[in-house]
């Protein structure tokens, strides 16, 4: 199926830029929300390993329109010198600008926000406040260590991959690997700061959204994250009532940015299927499962 992509410039002085991917008019889902995604950390709007480009095109085939854009000062969007607001506040304003633009120019009145790692902050903040947000996707969203997390922690000592990492990176020559394998300068740097809500605040926020009927998908990976078991979410959000609007997915073999192609494919398939189930009236009803573990 075909789709069209065009540059969308918006914001007070037209200095915010993104790419709008729209389905073929014959394939458009009438009344469906527009999907929005933006920078993960300091990544460009294409997303880590181009995931937002692939996702946008996939969603267009299902009839959804998606805007992937750069917030102020990142990627292809300029920052205003006069704007002294903190990043978190400015990001929220940028997401709202994007929604207003899609309303004015394309007639959308409902939105689904895709937060991925640090971009979860703005997605969550806007979703709590804006009634036009009908869905939120939390990819590697808020996570808090729990008692069970710490109890399970020693199990990591039994994982072969962790020992292999330790030994191969520390002594590459012993394994016939180039010495450059031990070069830490090759690793990505963490350059952004997060403002986590407390678990209690998060619970309050999520309850507000449930009351509004907002649909939520939360996906967590394993690896070196602070998430260690499928139901950890409901050990820090102590509100089982939220489960009626929130689908929880745990992908233990995946890493934080879904580095492997196969892992990204599974995540995109899941996200696409979830959007289809929740926002396409013609889709078959959900099987009612609220928690899933992705294997492999």
């Amino acid at each position, binding site marked *: 199926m075909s789709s069209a*992509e*065009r*540059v969308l*410039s918006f914001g007070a002085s037209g*200095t915010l*830029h993104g*790419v709008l991917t729209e389905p073929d008019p014959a394939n458009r889902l009438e009344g469906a929300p527009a999907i929005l995604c933006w920078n993960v950390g*300091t*990544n*460009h*709007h*294409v997303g*880590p*390993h*181009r995931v937002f*480009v*692939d996702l946008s095109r996939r969603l267009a085939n299902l009839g959804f329109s998606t805007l992937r854009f750069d917030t102020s000062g990142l*990627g*292809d*969007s*300029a920052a205003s010198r006069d704007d002294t607001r903190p990043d978190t506040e400015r990001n929220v304003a940028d997401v709202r600008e994007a929604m207003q633009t899609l309303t004015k120019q394309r007639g959308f009145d409902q939105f689904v926000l895709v937060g991925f790692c640090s971009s979860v902050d703005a997605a969550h903040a806007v979703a709590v406040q804006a009634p036009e947000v009908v869905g939120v996707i939390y990819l590697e969203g808020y996570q808090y260590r729990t008692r069970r997390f710490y109890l399970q922690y020693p199990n990591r000592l039994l*994982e*072969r*991959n*962790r020992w*292999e*990492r330790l030994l*191969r*990176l520390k002594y590459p020559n012993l394994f016939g*690997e*180039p010495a*450059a*394998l031990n*070069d830490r*300068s*090759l*690793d*990505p*740097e963490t*350059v952004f700061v997060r403002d986590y809500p407390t678990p209690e605040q998060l619970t309050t926020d999520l309850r507000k959204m449930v009351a509004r009927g907002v649909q939520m998908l939360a996906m967590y990976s394993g*690896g*070196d994250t602070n998430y260690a078991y499928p139901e950890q979410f409901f050990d820090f959000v102590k509100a089982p009532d939220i489960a009626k609007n929130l689908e929880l997915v745990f992908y233990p073999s995946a*890493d*934080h*940015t879904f*580095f*492997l*192609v196969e892992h990204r494919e599974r995540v995109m398939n899941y996200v696409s299927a979830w959007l289809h189930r929740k926002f396409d009236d013609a889709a078959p009803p959900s099987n009612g499962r609220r928690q899933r573990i992705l294997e492999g």
Partner: protein
Amino acid sequence: MKPMFFGDSKRKLYGVYDAPTGTKRRSHAVLLCYPGVQEYGTSLWGFRRLSAMLAQAGHHVLRFDYFGTGDSAGRVEEGAVDTWVADIQQAALELKDISGARQLSILGKRLGGALAVKACQAGLDAKRLVLWDPVVHGSAYVSELETWDTRRNLLLLHAERRGSGASELLGYPFPLTQRQQLQSLNLVGELPGAVKNVAIFASEARDGYRRLHEAYVSAGLSSELLQAADAADGGQAGAQGRAQLSGSILADMANKLEDASAA
């Protein structure tokens, strides 16, 4: 910054054009060629800064995504050396068209440098070619990326995925045909067509850069081999590890392109 799509409707390319912003306005344009997709993410910010510096100096600048990368049409696995070379030619035409500039220079980083040389060899004319840590020998380049890939896989607990011959590289699909095409690249002995003026910026001393420079000098080209001002900027670190770039390297390159427009 003016983002746009250009080219054939079935394989549209995404680019960002910077018009001159300073007091000077030259009839000289600069085309910036990104590295390969595996090094794209860590190069974007430097290219944005370089583009802004050149625009401030009065140049028209275009940076663009090759087919199958960034926002351009296509999937990563559909990319091929020939199509990326054709993309450079297409982008050069677009830049001349939107800017009205009579003269064009090209800057290419890593794989983008090698592709720029091939585009010039295929007939694209440029006043000056600036090659930033260019890929000289494709086999060494692929091997280098594979080392980073191994490290990244180990770090992310995907130890079973490490090693050469895999169908993906640094998080992107890497089909065999693409691997073979890249491995067969060898810039030494390939002249950049009608281009007579080349500057090679090297972040670290590599035999390949010296041999490339010597080959160009032997062929009668005006070639300079320049040490990048801040060695921490480029090469391995600049390509894979660092999000930040010092302005000194970019300023040196901008000056080199400035020379081209003044010549």
